[in-house]
């Protein structure tokens, strides 16, 4: 850790990282730093050269690699075009099917209107007459019965029921 706190260290590193006038001035004046910087720079250069040499290959390697890239791109392009062709065909088929379905669908016929005749008038008159003869309107009859049940006049409700029956008999 003593290395980290050496004030000369920063100058050596600065000179390697980028152009720094102050670092260069320091290196010119400080012999240990200069040799340190040279050593480190040489190590990094050796690493760089080794990386370049190790990653280099004969021409056939690059030719093969380029050919593989070419064939992968071509196959992607072909499959892309085939996919587009298939999609277009499928969409066209779908559109035709939809059109055929629309053409074949039964045309909705207008509903025949009910003939209003004299017979229905007569029935309506009878219905009105029946309604007038009732004590309670037909729509309120269930409520009336319910009220009678709740008030506990089950026995008293008999006359009402019989009365109603007599109405119906009439």
């Amino acid at each position, binding site marked *: 850790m003593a290395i980290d706190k050496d004030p000369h260290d920063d100058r050596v590193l600065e000179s390697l990282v980028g152009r720094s006038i102050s670092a260069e001035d320091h290196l010119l004046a400080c012999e240990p730093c200069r040799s340190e910087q040279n050593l480190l720079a040489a190590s990094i250069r*050796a690493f760089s050269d080794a990386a370049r040499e190790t990653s280099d290959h004969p021409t056939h390697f690059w030719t093969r690699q380029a050919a593989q890239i070419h064939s992968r791109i071509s196959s992607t392009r072909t499959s892309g075009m085939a996919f587009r062709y298939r999609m277009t065909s499928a969409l066209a088929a779908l559109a035709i099917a939809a059109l055929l379905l629309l053409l074949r669908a039964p045309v909705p016929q207008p509903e025949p209107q009910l003939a209003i005749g004299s017979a229905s008038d007569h029935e309506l008159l009878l219905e009105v007459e029946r309604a007038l003869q009732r004590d309670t309107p037909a729509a309120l009859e269930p409520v009336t019965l319910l009220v009678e049940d709740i008030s506990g006049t089950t026995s008293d409700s008999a006359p009402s029921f019989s009365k109603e029956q007599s109405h119906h008999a009439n």
Partner: protein
Amino acid sequence: MENVLNDAIRTALTSNAVSIAEFDEVVRRHQKRVYRVLFVLLRDPDEADSLTQECFLRAYQNIDRFRGECSVQTWLLRIAVNLAKDHERNRKFSFWKRFLGFSNEEMHARAIEFPAPGPNPEQSLIERAQVQAVWDAVHELSPQQRTIFTLRFVEELELSEIAVVLGLQTGSVKAQLFRSVHMVRRKLKEQQWR
């Protein structure tokens, strides 16, 4: 001449109307550099080869995203660096898979054979050990620091170019490079003391 060709490729890429033949030219011009960066980052020649192919395939598929704001090289390096990052992530995941017994794949850390730098055997041995030490030290850096170190010292890119490749500020690149050189230097010193 070189610049004229670069401009022509750049114009073709920007117009998004690139034929495969034109793209072959892009591959031919940049494949070595892309491969080298991936090789140094991954330390695996087969993976580097595979990802180089993947890099150009992705570039071709995403040509419409290339706006010509940076050079073709910078654009390709950005794709390559992202691929390496994804690969590292997957490798870590597969390590855990192996560790937990879900996979029988062997860990493939390859020993790189460095060329002998000089004719003197003793000197060669020392220099090879020195290179190996830097190589190991670089691999102990974080992935981003390793990328910055590689782009700066192996590819000799300017700090501003590295910043574009990684989508960082130049100041941030400089700070990280400073730290990575510091760590490499410390490792080298430790090596010397052994």
